[in-house]
């Protein structure tokens, strides 16, 4: 199960990078990043809010992780 997962994930990553690299989608110029620079377009949200929400879900559900590394565990799961 794990092995399949790892293999699948790696192939997806490679595929994704290949597509992105070949399609020439990296054509956005530095002065064209006004919209991308807006706070609503960042992947990192409010740190305290994300901390609470991830903590809640990891203590009430079987799955956790995925968006980063680090952070403390707790006796809640």
């Amino acid at each position, binding site marked *: 199960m794990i*092995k399949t997962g*790892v*293999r699948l994930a*790696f*192939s997806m*990553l*490679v595929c994704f*990078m*290949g597509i*992105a*690299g*070949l399609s*020439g989608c*990296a054509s956005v*110029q*530095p*002065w*064209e*990043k*006004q919209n991308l*620079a*807006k706070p609503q377009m960042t992947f990192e949200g409010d740190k305290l809010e994300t901390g609470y929400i991830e903590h809640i879900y990891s203590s009430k559900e079987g799955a956790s992780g995925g968006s980063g590394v680090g952070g403390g565990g707790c006796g809640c799961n």
Partner: protein
Amino acid sequence: MSLIRRKILHGATVALMLFMGNSNDLFALEKGVKAPDFQLTGTQGSVRLADAAGSVVYVDFWASWCGPCRQSFPWMNEMQEKYRAKGLKVIAVNVDAKSEDARKFLAQNPAKFTVAFDSKGATPAHYGVKGMPSSFIIGRDGKVMSTHLGFNASEKEKLESDIKSALEAK
């Protein structure tokens, strides 16, 4: 498993190479090259680089949405004031798609130097701008003497000494 992993890593590496190949296409303006001329609309009429021939020109590319650009404004005011007599001319080219955003920014961050607008992005493309803000120090002979990307407090001294040496150059 380890063999598979190695194969996959190999694939990933090839994909990364493709990426890096793409970055080759970008053109960057180099030292000693004649700075491309431009004619743009400014806050006070038309702005043309060639009109500043004989001066040292500090060309800055900025955008209203860029944080470090905001920080650079007081510093550019200071530089313009300090070295005006020695022949420094600061031209800040705004690259916002909507010049209206730039005017809002200018209302909050007054500029005591020349500001021009290039909403089409032709000038930064000619200069090979790689990020916001980017600056080019152009000598009295119209050639690029140094280039700089980004702005933060720790780099002010380096930038000022570059301006000084451009002003002192024969």
